[in-house]
Structures are given as structure tokens and as C-alpha cells.
């Protein structure tokens, strides 16, 4: 077997177990099956081409995710996503937990996965990716830091704000809105 085949063998062994996870993240980022497939395909092509430059002993998973993320960010969809949603300052103080865990409790009681999925979907891309890397991919802060090329402190603050943003989106709408909607419905009936 040639040296190139050996390299392909080890790339396959390392890269293919990540296929489902990479596709899942790609779909979350792009919101589109075709774009997710293009993104994953380009990621594998770039990774295979640059595999000789991968330093043995370093984190291959973080390396693959970093390629996927960079490819996404330089794509049209990625640029649009990052341009339309400005990122707040990174050095927010620690988040104080809410006293009444209304959104969490509500979520747990209802177990409404679709509601949670659409709430994650609505998050800005910087929040969505850090949340998914932590909760779904179960990456450590260090791994996320390597994947996103940001300091661990930034990972922590971004994660904290992502969770807060998710809770805010899951918070029940205020009563005023409900009343207003009801009034509007009534007015429509009248028309």
C-alpha cells in the first residue's frame, strides 16, 4: 500500500466518524439541506487536501470543525449571517440566574422539542454554534476555544449569553401581547 493510501486510510479513520455531527452542525448553520451538503463536502475536500499539514497529536475534531466553520463564514450565507447580527461586547459580567425558572420549567414541563429547536434556530449564529458545540457535541471549553479560535474566557461569556438569549426566547409572551392580539382578533371579527 502506498504512502498516499496510508494517509487516506488514516484520514478516513479519523474523519468519517465525525460525518454525522459535522453535517448536523452544517445544517444548523446554513438552515438548508443543499447548502449543508455543499458545506460538508467542501470541508472534507479541504481537510483531505490539507491533511498533511495537520499536526499529529493535536485535536483532529477541533481541526475539522474549524475548517467547517471557516468555510461557512466565508460563504455567502455565512457572511450574511454574521453581517446582519452584530456581536455584543464579549466581556459581559457573569450572568445571574433567574430566580423563577419560568422558561426552563415551562420547557421541561411541555417537553416541546420543536419550540426549542425553533428558538435555537433564531439565535444569532455566534450563539447557535457555541451552544451546539457545548451541548450537542459535548466539547470542552478548550476544544470550543480551538474550534472558534477565541480565548476560553470568550467561550464562557458567549455561552452564558447564548443560554440567556435562549431562555429569553422561551419565556412566555407577556399578557399585554395576548390581550392586544385578542383585541385585534375581535376587531377583525367586527370587520
Amino acid at each position: 500500500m502506498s504512502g498516499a493510501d496510508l494517509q487516506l486510510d488514516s484520514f478516513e479513520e479519523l474523519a468519517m466518524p465525525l460525518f454525522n455531527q459535522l453535517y448536523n452542525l452544517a445544517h444548523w448553520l446554513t438552515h438548508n439541506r443543499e447548502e449543508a451538503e455543499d458545506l460538508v463536502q467542501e470541508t472534507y475536500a479541504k481537510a483531505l487536501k490539507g491533511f498533511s499539514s495537520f499536526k499529529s497529536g493535536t485535536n483532529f475534531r477541533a481541526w475539522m470543525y474549524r475548517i467547517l466553520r471557516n468555510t461557512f463564514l466565508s460563504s455567502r450565507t455565512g457572511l450574511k449571517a454574521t453581517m446582519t447580527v452584530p456581536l455584543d461586547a464579549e466581556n459581559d459580567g457573569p450572568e445571574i440566574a433567574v430566580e423563577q425558572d419560568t422558561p426552563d420549567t415551562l420547557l421541561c414541563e411541555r417537553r416541546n422539542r420543536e419550540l426549542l429547536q425553533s428558538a435555537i434556530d433564531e439565535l444569532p449564529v455566534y450563539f447557535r454554534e457555541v451552544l451546539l458545540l457545548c451541548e450537542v457535541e459535548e466539547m470542552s471549553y478548550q476544544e470550543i476555544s480551538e474550534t472558534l479560535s477565541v480565548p476560553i474566557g470568550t467561550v464562557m461569556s458567549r455561552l452564558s449569553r447564548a443560554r440567556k438569549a435562549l431562555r429569553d426566547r422561551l419565556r412566555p409572551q407577556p399578557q399585554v401581547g395576548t390581550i392586544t392580539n385578542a383585541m385585534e382578533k375581535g376587531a377583525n371579527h367586527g370587520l
Partner: protein
Amino acid sequence: MVCDSWQGMLDTYLDGEIPDEEMRTYDAHVRNCPSCSVDALTRVQMKRAIQLAGKRFTPTAEFRKRIQQSVVPNRQRSFRLGWMLATAAVLILVVGTFTSSHMGNRSGRDQVFSEITDLHVATLASSSPVDVISTDRHTVKPWFQGKIPFSFNLPELQNSEFSLLGGRMTYLDQTPGAHLIYDVRKHHISVLVFQERSLPASLDENSLSPKNLPFNMETWTEGGLRYFVIGDASAADINSLAKLLRAAS
């Protein structure tokens, strides 16, 4: 509140990201504090819910097969193909003995040129080759602010045959850079700019004239930046655009 300082660390604690000693202290606190234990429980439930909801998309078997084929060496070659490859390998070896003195330096360089060619072709094949669409260099250049870690100058094209179509961000060897598209007599030319120090060390010569590429290309370094000009336009056109860019930088 007494628990404010604990609750500020609750997520970090639940992520298992605090040191062992603090973890033990925190464990003890959570066990004895009703407020924190309830909070911790709901956050754990939230984490589990996100984990379940997050595993949402599954690739098709067809797509997996396509990727698998692209990364797996094909061991099902026929004898004939194997024989042909063996012959080819011998030929390469023979040719290699005559050119071995040049190969070491060229391999890395050729890989970069190959990547540049890929970027040029892939961009032109795209339905949206540029993300900032403008013929005005004063619109295109500022668009890159905050997207790439360097600045560069674009030439005035008023009395030339070239026109600027726009630009996009690109990556080469995990290095961010600028990709500009110019037009000359319906030929599209890519201009790619990267930081020299971020690129492979094999590109250490100031000016190279790559041979055996499917396109005409010129590359040089100026002010710490590496420029590539590539396209199917004539070598003279590529050279003219390169001169304009050199004069502007």
C-alpha cells in the same frame, strides 16, 4: 442574595469546567442549598433538552456514500488498472530522477498554485462569485474591513481596459484573504491577496512565474502581502493588471 456568587458559576459547574477542588465545594453547596439545587436541576434538564433537540439533522445515505468515496482509497482496482498505474509509477520514477533536484522546493509551491487555481475556478463557477458587487474600489476595499487581518490598495482603472466586478473573502491554508474579480474583454481575472507570513514557507521568492498551469498566473510579494493574479486572459493582460496592482501597493 447569598447564592449570587454560586449561581454565577452554575453553568460552568454543570459543564464540568471548574477545578476538582472547587467542584467538591460546589457539590456540597448545591446539596445543602434548596435554591441552587432547584436551579441546577432545571439547568441540567435544559442541557439535556438542548442535546436532544440539537441532534436534529441526519445526512442521507447517498450523501454519506459520496463523501466516503471521496476519502477512501479505491482498493477494487482491476489488474489492468493496477498494471497501468505501476507503469505510470515507473515512468514517474524515471522522470523523477531527472528532476529530483527541483522537486523538493516545488511540491509545496505547486500545492499553493493548485489551491489558487481551485479558488479561481470554484469562484467563477459559483452562482454568486462576489459578495460585494461594485466597480468602485472605494466601495470594495472598505468592505473587507474587519473581515481580514490586513489592508491593501486597489489601483485606479479609469484609463485601462480592466474593470473591477467586486470581491469576496477567501481562505488559503486556513489563512483569511481577499479575493477580487476583474474583467477584461469578457475574461474574468482573480486577484487574491494574503499575508505572506501566514502562507507556506515554500513561497519565499519575490517573484515567480508558475509554469504548467491551466491559466496564466503572476505572483509576487509586496509590503508583507502575497498577491496572486490568475485568469484565462492572455499573459500580457495578466501582466498589465499585475503592474497596476504593484503600482498601487
